């Protein structure tokens, strides 16, 4: 039995939404965040993101495939989970998930197909036997890679990216809405919630790509394209500033208003959540990467490549921690406080094993990387044909020297 300080309603001492409900927004956050990066390239013409655009799309896709699992795992009756899709109750914020999820999945699958179509066709042409049949099936019978067809592809990709961006934003903003629209819980109930979720999703998505890009480049024995690294750092910095501002605003407004719940919320933040909120979310995951990224962005031209890579990777890892702590503090924190607004329960410790345990959470985070690996095996994440071999990494980059040439230095 958890320990209570103050008075809790007797049914209010349980943490019903456990680690899995922390993982759920964390994982969908990567989906939305990574998609925002691809959109910066496909929609907004930020060519500096070209080196990570495909990686970002594949990442978004991989995380989307597991995004509904934590929800499913958390249900008291997982076997009835499909009812949310089959007989949704439309006044429920949660029922929207099925629709948004499948809609976004459809868009993303289509977009992935268009982006990788030339690759699929190439592989179909090159292989034989079963493999050939497999790729032929993936190609859906069209082998046309002429300039006209590619032009059509390009337009389809832009259109899908145009649909996908609002889709991704809604998918995640809506996750924030699930919490923000619960008037019973003053720690959740704020219209800022969907916005906070959305910008912190951008933080987590970009941060993940910063790290992934470094890792992938190392694995391929190339040095990461520096304009891309600094662009990622700049956008990460921007979204981190936004996130921290909004997260602080939420608290400051509550404190200044002296809302009836502030007494208990301030106690919650300074006692039960002191480590995860003050230390992790605000200082280690907030302030420190903020400074590191400021260095990367403001002193960009003076930084050595190594320093830039290291600083931005460390900052990104801390940002990943920040976002996780934020999810934790919202989801779990909100349940440590009784709705009587008079009591707090002892901190919640997730179990290790079991359906909603720590190992399962780790498996959930690991799964997308396995999917990415398979993806790379089957389709190849990087665009290899014309560029990779020729040694002029990205011809349309503004600073092409960094791409292939840099690899030699690093290696």
């Amino acid at each position, binding site marked *: 039995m958890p320990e209570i300080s103050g*008075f809790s309603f007797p049914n209010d001492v349980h943490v*019903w939404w456990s680690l899995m409900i922390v993982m759920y927004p964390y994982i969908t956050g990567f989906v939305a965040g990574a998609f925002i990066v691809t959109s910066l390239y496909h929609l907004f013409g930020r060519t500096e993101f070209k080196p990570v655009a495909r990686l970002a799309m594949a990442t978004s896709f991989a995380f989307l495939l597991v995004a509904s699992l934590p929800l499913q795992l958390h249900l008291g009756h997982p076997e009835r989970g499909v009812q949310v899709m089959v007989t949704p*109750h439309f006044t429920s914020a949660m029922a929207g998930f099925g629709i948004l999820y499948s809609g976004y999945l459809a868009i993303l699958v289509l977009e992935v197909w268009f982006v990788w179509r030339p690759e699929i066709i190439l592989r179909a042409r090159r292989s034989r036997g079963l493999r050939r049949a497999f790729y032929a099936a993936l190609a859906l019978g069209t082998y046309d890679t002429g300039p006209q067809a590619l032009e059509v592809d390009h337009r389809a990709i832009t259109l899908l990216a145009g649909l996908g961006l609002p889709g991704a934003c809604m998918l995640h903003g809506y996750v924030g809405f699930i919490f923000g629209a619960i008037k019973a819980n003053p720690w959740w109930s704020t219209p800022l919630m969907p916005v906070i979720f959305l910008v912190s999703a951008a933080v987590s998505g970009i941060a993940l790509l910063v790290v992934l890009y470094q890792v992938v480049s190392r694995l391929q024995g190339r040095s990461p394209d520096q304009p891309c690294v600094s662009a990622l750092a700049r956008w990460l910095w921007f979204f981190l500033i936004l996130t921290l501002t909004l997260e602080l605003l939420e608290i400051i407004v509550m404190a200044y208003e002296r809302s009836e719940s502030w007494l208990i919320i301030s106690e919650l933040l300074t006692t039960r959540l002191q480590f995860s909120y003050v230390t992790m979310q605000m200082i280690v995951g907030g302030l420190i990467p903020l400074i590191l990224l400021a260095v990367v962005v403001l002193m960009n031209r003076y930084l050595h490549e190594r320093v830039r890579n290291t600083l931005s990777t460390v900052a990104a890892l801390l940002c990943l921690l920040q976002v996780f702590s934020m999810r934790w503090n919202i989801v779990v924190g909100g349940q440590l406080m009784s709705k009587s607004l008079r009591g707090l329960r002892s901190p919640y410790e997730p179990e290790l094993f079991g359906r909603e345990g720590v190992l399962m959470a780790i498996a959930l985070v690991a799964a997308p990387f396995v999917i990415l690996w398979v993806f790379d095996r089957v389709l190849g994440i990087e665009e290899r044909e014309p560029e990779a071999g020729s040694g002029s990494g990205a011809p349309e980059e503004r600073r092409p020297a960094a791409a292939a040439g840099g690899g030699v230095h690093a290696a």
Partner: protein
Amino acid sequence: MAPKSNALPVLQSDPARPSPGVGRRRFLADALRLSGGALVLLAGGSAAEALAAVQAPHPEAYRWDEHLYAYLIDTTKCIGCGSCVRACAAENQVPDGFYRTWIERYVVGMEQTHVESPNGGKDGFGPIQVGFTATKSFFVPKMCNHCRATPCVQVCPVGASYRTKDGVVMVDGERCIGCAYCVQACPFGSRFISPVTHTAEKCTWCYHRVTKGLRPACVEVCPTGARQFGDLKREDDPVRRAIAQDRVEVLQGHLLTEPQCYYLHLDKEVR
């Protein structure tokens, strides 16, 4: 495990008894209902639901549109004996450590307030020492308020939580997926996920009893009359009269959930 059944109005109808209005009209009506049921089936509903659609408005059955229930609690009368909590647990097989109804004790001074509800008040309350000068003390029975604008029903993703025509908020245990969204959405802490059924459970005002004309178990056993159950559709109902004429209060009125549990003499300290 009979008490949880939501299909009671169905069970009450007696198909063997001939009804007065049998005729072509009746036949047509039944046929219509039957096709309605078939539609429900086609739309993915369960067979039980389709059956309910066919059978529910049987003339002899309990008519849920003829009642509208409300609950009245006089906090000055409660002595904290906990009989209601025990009766509820027995009547509804409430798992240990969870409460469909509970009692809170308030010990209030000019500067401080002490609130407690050990084991939901199930074992009554012993003498108490507080570290301040208490100026008043009282007990407050709590339970699901059967809100009219209920956030719990609103958020249920599968429609397992619903409000009946006679004003009772219920959970369909066969449909509930155990997501706990309703538990989060109830501002009063009235719901829990049962460790036995893994579905949401809460006070039903003993719907299985009231549809037979009995009173809820807690009302039945309350020795002081602190708990009263009434029907707003009956002109002469004492609860109706109290709500209409006395100064009554509801819990957390600012949340606008329109509770249908009314309180007499509620203190400012009670949330």
